[in-house]
């Protein structure tokens, strides 16, 4: 299975440290960028096209939800926030998971498992789609 590339958008230093430290247990996840505000995060996601994003909600310049609205690239999203009232909205945006701060290493691991299986199934769907396309062409 190939490496999953992720970007972290989070305005608090210790919160970024925590996620980076949790990620040590998951070698197939590659952190390709960290940003402390929604605006820089948006630019980076559009340019670097990661497979997934860890997204805080309340951030300077752009909130997590505002960022998703204007995003051109469409990565998988795991929300990380201290606010529980955005959960429904997050799943309406088809989020993979919603991590309430502070969260444990185990809970973080579950989120990454969901992410892997989501990406895996999407690939299979894409493979089936391309298979069907190929059959149609013949």
């Amino acid at each position: 299975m190939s490496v999953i590339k992720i970007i972290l958008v989070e305005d608090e230093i210790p919160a970024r440290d925590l996620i980076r430290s949790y990620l040590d247990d998951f070698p197939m996840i590659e952190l390709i960028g960290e940003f402390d505000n929604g605006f820089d995060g948006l630019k980076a996601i559009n340019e670097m096209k990661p497979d997934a994003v860890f997204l805080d909600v309340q951030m300077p310049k752009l909130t997590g939800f505002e960022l998703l609205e204007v995003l051109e690239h469409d990565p998988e999203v795991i929300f990380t926030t201290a606010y529980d009232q955005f959960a429904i909205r997050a799943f309406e945006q088809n989020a993979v998971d919603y991590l309430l701060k502070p969260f444990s290493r185990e809970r973080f691991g579950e989120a990454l498992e969901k992410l892997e299986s989501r990406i895996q199934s999407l690939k299979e769907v894409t493979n089936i789609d391309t298979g069907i396309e190929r059959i149609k062409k013949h």
Partner: protein
Amino acid sequence: MSHTITGYRRSILIYTFVRLVISALQGFLFWYFLRFSLPVVIIDPLLSSLLFGFLGLLAWYPTRYIPFQKQSPLYSILAHVVAGLMVLTVWALVSVGLLEMIFSSRSEYMDFLAESILWRAILGGLVYLVLVLIYYLVSNSQKLQERAQKEERLKNLVRDTELNLLKSQINPHFLFNSLNSIASLTMSNPDEARDMIIRLSDFLRYSLKHRENEFLPLNEELGRMKDYLAIEKIRFGEKLQYVFNISAECGKFPVPTMIFQPLFENAIRHSVYESIDPVTLRFDCIPENDYMKTVISNDYDPKIPTKKGTGLGLQNVRQRIELAYQEKGLVQWNGTDGVFAVTILFPRIFAKL
């Protein structure tokens, strides 16, 4: 409710004075028109008037215990008539009896006394009526006064409750984010994690403990606010700078507890939470005339539209200060040139309380 007359020193004096004036008047009439001798002129009015004065005081009790509005008027009137007749009978019998005993040798006075009983009774009845009316008026105004006092007490109670409600509440997200930071620091920097837990505990204990409308020295209040800022600094690092400039006179000045917390929270929310660039929070305190002036200011980006919920914290602080000091205009705020400042004037008179 105490007796309208005997309950108050001043009323007793006035009542006695009025009775003496009436006796003097009566004595003068006896002397001028009826040409009685001096002992009669002095003793008859004094005896009957003082005795009536004592019995008249008893009329207060039916007034007190037969409330006019609650019973039917006929019942009250009847009760008063019965009570009045009893008082008058006792008064007439005792006073005339005593006078007869004292002056039994003076026959012309004895004739007069026998004739005058009816007149005395009628006059006494009128005075009794006046007394009852006065009792009703006074007890009514006493009731009004008591009601006003009760209302005042109620108002104070409402005010205290309001103050407690206005007491700032710690934003739970601040708490959760701080705990998340601690979770992170336990791995990267356990010493700092411990330090942050202690600061957070001090801050929480302070905010929980001071639920009543207490006053504490400014330095103590600011100590807890510095804990709060130190926690935020761990979260946001170099992005948050703060400067405290407190004149020596300010340190011990009493301020309402947690009064600055919503202001610092606001300052943080509109600066650090919204900005990518470093921001500076300032706290200044200087004495100014009859006030201690404190100013909390923060950098902010005027281009960012203010989010909903803004202003509520400021309004709360303004209300709390106005309720605590009963003076308007003590809390002012304005935003110019990218600096938002909240000024509070604490009346210095309160420092002596």
